């Protein structure tokens, strides 16, 4: 087990490094920088600005210092656009928001998705099953950026039940739509995976034995079938995690929640390279870490896949 974790770490760390170097180099080779604007600044002024942001040093030194600052101080440097803030402050402001609705979306997707899948499998070909299958197909072709406007249309413009955007310190009615929009696709996929694996498990021999012993139906499901049926779901949690991180960009942008994704897109449009780089690396690191955790979790539950 420890060997497995170490092996996975041995891939995760170089991946992270590649990510940092790749984004850093991309940022540096891009033509121009945030300070070469429409006004031509005097040479001396430019040099002073470059010195302030450390842009006067050779590229490799900038890269090493950048990595060192992240590793040693968790410091992403100053923002190029907002002169009085550092990237860290921007992250500290946006990240809790993203984390809040991301957490709820994860809970909703996993909780409802699994229950739905289990019920659909146990009561195969009932109306509940058809409902689950319908949700599954719908969720696959309706991505979050399509669902978000539809939700706003229904719940804000027609029914006037929920506010169409903003955050308001995470009051519940501001959180509902972001959570639904972010979780729908994954809820659908989790339901689909749970349903098919549950069906498979329910047809296996040990379930027949359990039934033959005279166990009541629901007990067969919860005690015997659930655990093996959830294995494929666990392996899908990695993509869910990654997808939610990417999806949060849309949610932040559309609902103006002020989360990290909104900063990412704004910094991208403003050519605020340092913020962009910082957010990319943070979200990338999260993705890689999430994948790592899921992999380890999976190996822990199912010893067969340790290699």
């Amino acid at each position, binding site marked *: 087990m420890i060997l497995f974790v170490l092996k996975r770490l041995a891939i995760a760390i170089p991946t992270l490094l590649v990510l940092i170097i790749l984004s850093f180099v991309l940022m540096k080779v891009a033509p121009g920088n945030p300070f070469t604007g429409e006004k031509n600044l005097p040479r001396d002024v430019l040099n002073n600005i470059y010195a302030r942001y450390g842009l006067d040093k050779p590229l490799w030194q900038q890269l090493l210092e950048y990595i060192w600052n992240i590793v040693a101080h968790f410091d992403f440097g100053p923002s190029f656009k907002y002169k009085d803030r550092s990237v860290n402050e921007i992250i500290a402001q946006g990240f809790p928001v993203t984390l809040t609705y991301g957490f709820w979306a994860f809970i909703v997707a996993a909780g409802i998705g699994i229950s739905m899948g289990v019920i659909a499998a146990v009561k195969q070909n009932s109306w509940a099953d058809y409902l689950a299958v319908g949700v599954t197909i719908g969720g696959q072709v309706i991505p979050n950026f399509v669902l978000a406007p539809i939700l706003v249309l229904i719940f804000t413009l027609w029914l006037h039940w929920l506010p169409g955007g903003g955050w308001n310190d995470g009051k519940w009615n501001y959180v509902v739509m972001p959570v639904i929009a972010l979780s729908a696709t994954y809820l659908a996929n989790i339901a689909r995976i749970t349903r098919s694996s549950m069906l498979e498990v329910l047809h296996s021999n040990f379930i027949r034995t359990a039934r033959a012993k005279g166990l009541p139906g629901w007990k067969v499901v919860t005690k015997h079938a659930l655990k093996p049926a959830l294995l494929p779901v666990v392996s899908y949690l990695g993509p869910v995690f990654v997808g939610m991180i990417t999806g949060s960009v849309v949610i932040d942008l559309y609902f103006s929640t002020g989360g990290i994704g909104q900063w990412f897109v704004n910094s991208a449009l403003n050519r605020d390279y340092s913020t962009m780089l910082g*957010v990319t690396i943070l979200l990338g690191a999260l993705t890689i870490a999430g994948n790592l955790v899921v992999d380890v979790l999976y190996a822990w539950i199912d010893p067969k896949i340790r290699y």
Partner: protein
Amino acid sequence: MLAETRVETPTRSAEPELAPAAPIKGRSLWQDAGARFVRNRAALVSVIVLVTIVLFTFVGPFFAAWSIEKIDWSIIGMVAQKGQPSLATGHYFGADEVGRDLYSRVIQGTQISLAVGILGSAVAVIVGTLYGAVAGYFGGRLDSAMMRFVDIIYSIPFLFILILMLIMFGRSFVVLFMGIGLISWLGMARVVRGQTLTLKNREFVEAAIATGVKPLAVVFRHIVPNLLGIVVVYATLLIPEIILLESFISFLGLGIQEPNTSLGALISDGAQTMQYGELWQLGFPLAFFVVILFSFFFAGDGLRDALDPKDR
């Protein structure tokens, strides 16, 4: 191959048919798959829908009363009242926020979205197939090195790199395209490699080697053609994914730029103006988008059922 000898079982086809004894004709693997595909109603309907949409994007412009860029000055500022879909004004799908004809714009957006999907998928197919086939066939250290490389690239959240690239090198079609191509060949390479591993120990490969065919020629002439089935399936399933990806990026305002448009960009515009009651601006692009995605998914599923040897 199993397929030639497979017997039609009555449960498979809906109506049991007792055809008069005709001279027995052999059926090729592809004919077999074709028959299976046609029997799948959802997949067949999807293909018909897709073909109709593609034809529509080519024929549709001839019926358009307004060109893509032409601004209808008579409705400017009153788009919510006067820009509704109507046959009288010639705006069959209504007008957009700045008075352009949505019918023409949707056609253009559909064309671009489809083009991005299909071309992106084609890039992924070519690169992924060659990469996977070479890695799988030669095996050993080359294989581990090549696949480890894929592993590492795969676990980088590439969407962010793609957005980074779009910002750095300008939001052009070419960059978008290269970026999407860079991401999407990875999955294909994995699938193809796996398939190659099982293919390379087959007799026909052995025979080719025995007759002195050079290794690279074995890969291109014997392995790659036999991968076609699985490649077609994955390519079909890849197209909607790429359309989704492009729409996602366009929705963020980072993808296709004006005056060009894509379904994602149109949906994004429509989502912003729906509060003024201009629902058609969201509705039409959304309808096209959802129908196209549905059709590709069903068609891909049908193809998989028809071609994937595992499910027979």
